[in-house]
């Protein structure tokens, strides 16, 4: 394999920013539990609290609203189950949860688990061909019985096709009824502007390793007025809704990454979108029937993540493309999750109205802070022969 891979899978994970590595490394050798009362403990606590303040400032929330977790999946579980249980306990009539049909598995699966546990009805609202949720359908679902809606969860930006969801419009229709809104913003922080207070959402998930911070640490930003039942019980370190000794070095690294990612978001988005547009244009020149899934890139920054190029290559198997590109040192994704590596057609693409076949012929290139025009050149040079090979492969298997 080539020495330096062309890494175009930043939506899966992106390299840590040097400043984040530095901030994290600076504390790795320190002893001190942030909850201990002695000097070492106080020092660790200071690292955690200063990090909390840095994050709060970057996202326009108050420090008390920042709850540290182990990452996106835990934050989503805590928001969905924790808010649902608390809302249900306060009023047993609240038995419905509304969400979109294109959520990440970290949202889908806890909701399906709640359904199986009984007593909950989850409505997965349809999306249009671009992957944008039908706000009118959401409004109708609320109007059918506002008092029975415990929670609405809608992602800020889709991880597969990059479509931005109308979170503000959802907040606007939920707010009059006092229905809390959660958003999974894992893909959004540092790539599009995110203002927690300004957005009006009640809870927001993000994670370190998607924005240049470390793995294994994330945040649920949640308003103080929102009751959240704990999932894991213990020392109650984080507002009594999340237990476990805090990882001060990782939290310091996370804060450094959030601060920089948010500060540089405008120029980062402009630079990465230009590379992405170049990639799409030149790939389509080589493979004329290749097409973009999700919001058209012409719609601009308000419709789609700047670094996401989700492309369909008719007549190809996505996993064949992935393999052939990997063999040429180009790393991307089919965009859909799998446990044993068996590709399944993406529920996101199926919800957008793609056929099973179209859902399988897709590739996701996601660009990030280390991407360069040389990466784009490498894809453009490889894609023609790769698509030709993959087409030969799938013709035979038919």
């Amino acid at each position: 394999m080539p020495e330096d891979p062309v890494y175009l899978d930043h939506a899966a994970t992106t390299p840590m920013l040097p400043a984040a590595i530095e901030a994290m490394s600076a504390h790795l050798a320190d002893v001190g539990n942030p909850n201990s009362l002695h000097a070492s403990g106080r020092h660790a606590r200071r690292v955690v609290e200063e990090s909390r303040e840095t994050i709060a400032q970057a996202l326009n929330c108050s420090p008390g609203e920042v709850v540290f977790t182990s990452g996106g999946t835990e934050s989503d579980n805590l928001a969905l189950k924790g808010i649902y249980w608390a809302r249900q306990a306060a009023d047993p009539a609240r038995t419905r949860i509304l969400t979109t049909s294109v959520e990440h598995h970290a949202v889908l699966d806890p909701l399906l688990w709640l359904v199986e546990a009984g007593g909950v009805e989850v409505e997965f609202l349809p999306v249009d061909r671009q992957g944008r949720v039908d706000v009118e359908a959401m409004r109708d679902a609320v109007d059918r019985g506002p008092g029975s809606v415990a929670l609405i969860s809608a992602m800020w930006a889709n991880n597969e096709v990059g479509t931005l969801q109308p979170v503000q419009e959802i907040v606007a229709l939920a707010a009059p009824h006092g229905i809390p809104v959660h958003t999974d913003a894992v893909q959004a922080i540092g790539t599009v502007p995110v203002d927690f207070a300004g957005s009006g959402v009640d809870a927001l998930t993000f994670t370190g390793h998607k924005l240049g911070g470390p793995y294994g640490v994330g945040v649920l930003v949640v308003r103080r007025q929102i009751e959240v039942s704990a999932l894991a019980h213990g020392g109650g370190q984080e507002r009594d809704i999340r237990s476990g000794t805090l990882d001060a070095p990782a939290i310091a690294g996370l804060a450094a990454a959030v601060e920089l990612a948010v500060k540089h978001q405008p120029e980062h988005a402009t630079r990465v979108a230009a590379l992405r547009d170049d990639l799409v244009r030149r790939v389509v020149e080589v493979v004329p029937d290749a097409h973009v899934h999700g919001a058209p890139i012409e719609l601009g920054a308000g419709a789609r993540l700047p670094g996401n190029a989700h492309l369909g290559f008719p007549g190809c198997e996505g996993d064949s493309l992935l393999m052939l590109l990997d063999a040429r040192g180009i790393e991307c994704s089919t965009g859909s999750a799998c446990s044993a590596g068996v590709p399944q057609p993406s529920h996101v693409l199926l919800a957008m109205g793609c056929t099973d076949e179209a859902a399988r012929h897709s590739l996701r290139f996601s660009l990030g802070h280390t991407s360069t025009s040389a990466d784009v050149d490498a894809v453009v040079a490889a894609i023609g022969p790769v698509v030709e090979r993959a087409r030969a492969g799938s013709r035979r298997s038919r």
Partner: protein
Amino acid sequence: MSGGVDSAVAAARAVEAGHDVTGIHLALSRNPASYRSGARGCCTIEDANDARRATDVIGIPFYVWDLSERFHEDVVEDFMDEYAAGRTPNPCLRCNEKIKFAAVLNRALDLGFDAVATGHYAQLRTGPDRSIEMHRAVDHGKDQSYVLGVLDQDQLAHSIFPLGGSTKADVRLEAAARGLLVADKPDSHDICFVADGDNTGWLREKLGDRSPHHSGPIVDESGEVLGEHQGSYGFTIGQRKGLRLGVPAADGKPRFVLDIEPVSGTVTVGPRERLAVDRIIGRSPRWCGTVPSRLEGTVQLRAHGDEHRARVRVGSAGVEIELLDPAYGIAPGQAAVIYDGTRVVGSATIAGTSRAS
């Protein structure tokens, strides 16, 4: 790459031989959770992860190919049909013929690869006429040429068996030396899609109405009913254990399954000498190279079975095999693999046998 030690070492050796190698793990279950748990054979998530780790140690790409539909149609359905018809199939041969050296090989060729390398123990050599010959492995205890006896010249020309010249013990040592953590993983023996090795239980559940008889009589050769069984698919010609006949035979000798008649559901038992067979008719022959018209050589009639000296004639009726000494417990549905010395000539599915008089 199954996730086991053999395919991991085979991949590492292929890399060392200068090939550009990509690791492929086959997902063969339509519902992985339904297959056996624990890392024992293949097809579990643990096995896929073991294979993935091995490829990272070796430094090659790794992919999972989903061939579950093809596997179900070509191997699992065939397995069920054969048992329902009173025969004893060998699904590993079917898998090699239809999946590993057909569906996988064809897809690989289309994607620009030249060959499939596996961890099977068999040796390939170029013969005097430039054709590819397959020979038994150096390690006779591990030799797997029997389950590869279905491969034709075209398939052999695109196959690589890097382990055929080694013993299993050496392969394990080499795996450990290479830092492949699968070195101590136990060998798999059972059928990969049958959890816990409980063949009869699996068949009872899966066959459903396809098996005409879930119970039937066990009779002796005179037709006297000796007992009842819970499905003729639970029996194999030559089987001795598990007959559950309360009364011992009059002569005190052990009894064996002589015949399975699936239409009436009758299982016939009798003494061992009545299992003796010296003529076998084979159907669906597969030849590794040139089709022989006549041959004196040996045949192997089950996996890890003995070699039997035989005269083989290929005619319009199929493959006629005459055994020079009688063999016992030969089950229709198994493969007869024909050897000339150590060289595999070809194979046929045993359709019928006749008893030495």
